[in-house]
Structures are given as C-alpha cells and as structure tokens.
C-alpha cells in the first residue's frame, strides 16, 4: 500500500498552509492561467523577467494541498533561474512525479524531491504539475496553460 505520509510530507503540508510568493504581481511582464478542469483547481503564475532570467515569480489561486505546495516551492526554486534552467527543472520534476526516473548526470531538484511520493498516486500527478504547466505557458508567452490528457 502506498503510504500517505510519502505524499503528504510535513514540508508539503506546511507549504500548503502557508504558501510562499502567494500574491499578485503588479507590473509582471508575463502571466498565465492554469486550470485543471477535472477538479476546478486554478492558479495564475506571474513572472518578472530580466533578459533571459526569472527575476521575480509569484502565484495566486486555489487548489488542493499538493498543487498549492508544488506552486509555492516552485516559486522558491525558480528565482534567478534562466528560462532553460526552469524548463529543465520542469522536465526533471515531471519525471520525478510520474516515476520515470531522473537523468543519469543527476538532478538539480533539491528540496523538490519531497514530491517523489506523488508517483505512487497517479491521480494526483496533474495536481503536482499544474503550476509548472502554467509557468511553462507564461515562459512561452501564452495566456493559458495546456494540460496534457
């Protein structure tokens, strides 16, 4: 049996209760909306870019503990990262939560590794990745995140 404690780790619960960078960003130069039509979860991700780097990032919206904690921790790790670095982290994070294994040269996920338990709960993968899909859309200059089926 998959263990609930693997999914609802302390740090995840803590971020879901007190999300970081959880506010609108007036003057954001990019933003995108992400909706999970299955459950009605909704987030907006705001970016302030400086050249190719993410100078500031924040989010707003509502959803479950997994999606909110994932969004919160994503904003923490992405400050100062370049587009390419952000996209690579998304790829690694996606591999982590879908249980596909990480690249051989080693992952840069750091504390995002607490989401590894999600891979035991396939129904919750979209919760964990909603904010990342929304970020991806914002980086691409799209207003709406496209979630995979």
């Amino acid at each position: 049996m998959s263990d609930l404690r693997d999914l609802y780790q302390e740090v995840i619960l803590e971020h879901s209760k007190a999300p970081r960078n959880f506010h609108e960003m007036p003057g954001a130069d990019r933003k995108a909306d992400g909706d999970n039509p299955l459950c009605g979860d909704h987030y907006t991700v705001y970016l302030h870019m400086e050249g190719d780097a993410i100078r500031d990032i924040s989010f707003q919206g509502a959803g479950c503990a997994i999606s909110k904690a994932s969004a919160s921790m994503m904003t923490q790790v992405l400050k100062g990262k370049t587009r390419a670095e952000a996209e690579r982290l998304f790829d690694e994070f996606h591999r982590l939560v879908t249980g596909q294994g990480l690249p051989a040269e080693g992952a840069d996920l750091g504390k995002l590794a607490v989401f590894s338990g999600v891979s035991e709960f396939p129904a919750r993968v979209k919760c964990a990745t909603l904010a990342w899909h929304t970020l991806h859309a914002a980086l691409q200059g799209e207003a709406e995140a496209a979630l995979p089926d």
Partner: protein
Amino acid sequence: MMPAAGVPRTGAPLAAHAEAAAGAAPYDVIRVRSDFPILQQKVHGKPLVYLDNAATSQKPRVVIEAISRYYETGNANIHRGVHYLSEHATEEHEAARKTVQQFLNARSPSEIIFVRGATEAINLVAQTYGRSRIGWGDEVLITGIEHHSNIVPWQMLCAEKGAALRVAPIDDNGDVLLDDFAALLGPRTKIAALTHVSNALGTVNPVRKMIEMAHQRNVPVLVDGAQAVPHLRVDMQNLGADFYVFSGHKVYGPTGIGVLYGKAELLDAMPPYQGGGDMILSVTFEKSTYNKIPYKFEAGTPDIAGAIGLGAALRYLSALGIERVAEHEHQLLEYATQSVSAIPELRVVGKAREKAGVLSFVLGSVHPHDIGTILDQDGIAIRTGHHCSQPVMRRFNIAATARASFALYNTREEIDALVRGIERVRRVFS
C-alpha cells in the same frame, strides 16, 4: 452462493414483483450486497466502501449475466433478419423497452427511446424539439442546480437561435425558489428543463408542482431524472412531464444506454435526430420517409446488450421494491448527516427540504481532492470536485466539495468507516 435478492430473469410484468416485494421480509442489505460481485473485493487492503453512486452505480449479477447471456447465446442484429437469432434479439430488445415503459408508467412503449444516456437524451430534445420550436428572442428556463448536461445543450441552442437561457435561482439550502421560477415562466418561455434530483446537493425538486406551474403557462417540461430514477418512484402519469430522461448506468444497468421518455404527440411532431438505418421507412436519392416512433429516433444499430442489461437492472430494482430501497437510502442519508455533524469544521453543503442519496460537504480549509485521496487509502470511494455543476459551486462560493452518495447496497457500517476516514483526514492536516 445465495440466490439473488432480485430474481426475475425476463418477461414477467413489473407490478407482480412490486407486490411480492411489498409483502416481503424487512430489507436485507447483506443479502442485497451478495448480488453485487464487485462489492466483495478489497481496495488498498481494505474492504471496498463504494460511496460514489451518483457518478455510477455497481451492477448486480443478474445484469452482468443478462449481458453475457445475450452475447453467448443471443447476439444478432435486430429489426432486419428473418433468422431465429435476429427475431429473438429483436424480442429481447423490445421486451426491455416494455420494461422501461412499465417502470416509468408511460402510456406506450413507443414513448420510450433508447439513447446513450441522459446527456444524449437532452441533446436530442434540444436539437429536435428545441431547434424546430425555439427562435430569436425566445427563452429556455432551467434551475440553478442543474448538471452541466442540462445547461450546455440549451446554451448551444440559445446561441444558435438568438434565444435566452433563464435560470431560476436557489436559496442557501439548495432549494429552488419557486416564486422566482413562476415569475420566470413568461410568454417567450418555450421549454423548461429541470433536474428531478440534484447530483451535487441531493435536492429533490418538487417537479410535479413545477410541471403544473409550467403547464398553466403552456410551457412543456423536460425532467432530468438521472439522479432520481435509482432512488424514487417515478411515474409519468403522476408527474405529467413532457420529456423525462435518465441513464442506465446510474440505476444498476450498464454504461452506454439511457432513456428518453416523451409524450407520443410531441415525439410524433418532432423532426428526427440522426439519420441512418432503422429510422426510415423508405429511402430514395430524392427523399426518405421516416419510421414511426420510437424508431424514428433510433438511427443505426442500437446498444442491444445495453438495453437488455438495463431491462434486467430495472426488474432487479422493482423486485426489491423502489419504496423499500428509498426508505433504506433515506435512513442511510439521515444517519450519515447526523454522524458527520459531530465532526468539527465539517460543513454539509445542500440542506434542502427533501433530499435523496447525496451528502456533499467541505472540511475546514482541506481541499476535497486531498480528502478523496486519503479516504481512498482506506478503500473508501467518494467523488471530489465540482461534480459537473460549477454554477452550483459558485453559488455556494466554493470550488469543490467532497460527495458521498448512497445506493441500495450501502450500510451504516460503511458510513461509520467514512466518518473514521474523515477523522483521519483531520489528523493528517492538523
């Protein structure tokens, strides 16, 4: 193995079963459970507690066997072969129609049209009756507790025709405000489409009264009975609905089959829905003439096995006795409502005067999805989300609820398990 609690195989009129049930012993839920093979299994090492019946119900052995028997010994296309199997399949398919007619107390089997489900039935009425009768400036009236399937087909029609969709509001308990409903029945109202029982809140709409109100204004009424048919006696002669729709899979039958009931005079006057085989009398390249009802609305080879399975399901339910089932479920809902009322921070959403089968709730700031995942680890299946009723959620200022919904095989012990599971959720998020 115990014999099935609901026994009949084919043919015998439903009334006989209902009478037998009325004189029978007290409702034996343990025996009923033994009729449902799927309920015997474990999920995550725990006995399955299936409380997602408003999404779909489980199937009794008699339904599974009726479908298997058809494919093993009776499969053929209907209405066209002169050979034995085709005639037999046609008879079984039409016997199922007769079973539905008796179950709904419709005047004639020709008023029973087989479709894929309630959704297709509503689309059929919107696209035939609606398209031929609704024009620019006309109005379609629905209520504030409709499922998306009784909103979107009308929205599409209104957008196409330049008509307006009007919505009768609900109060904080989830009851439709009847005065507002009456006021919205205007000279331009061409049809009212009402749910009988709300899937998100459990509200039982007083549809008989609402149909009377609409008919006083000469407005025909479609009733979405998807959540009502498994839980209540539904009698067309008593209700007076012009159209009544439901899905087979929510009433212990298979997926892919559902029913549109329509008054014969309305169906006769409506243009066909889809064109194809079976719905025609003759075809030339210049012109086709259409078959009589119900066949006019059943183009192509239908879901024969599905219809036979649905017939078996309705006979099973009638043999148990819908009134006894309703009473059992009513007691479960009362027990569940009372049991969860002791849980701190739990709020029941939907407190209508009359409810059936559904307990929707929110728990403090815990998102329903997280509730659903944690309950699932205890083998408890509930639905979480907006239940295809986003306007209802918006009305209550929430994004989603957790919903436990009950069926004829659920027990008090399962509700106790639900309560223990919710307490576990509170511990995880404490």
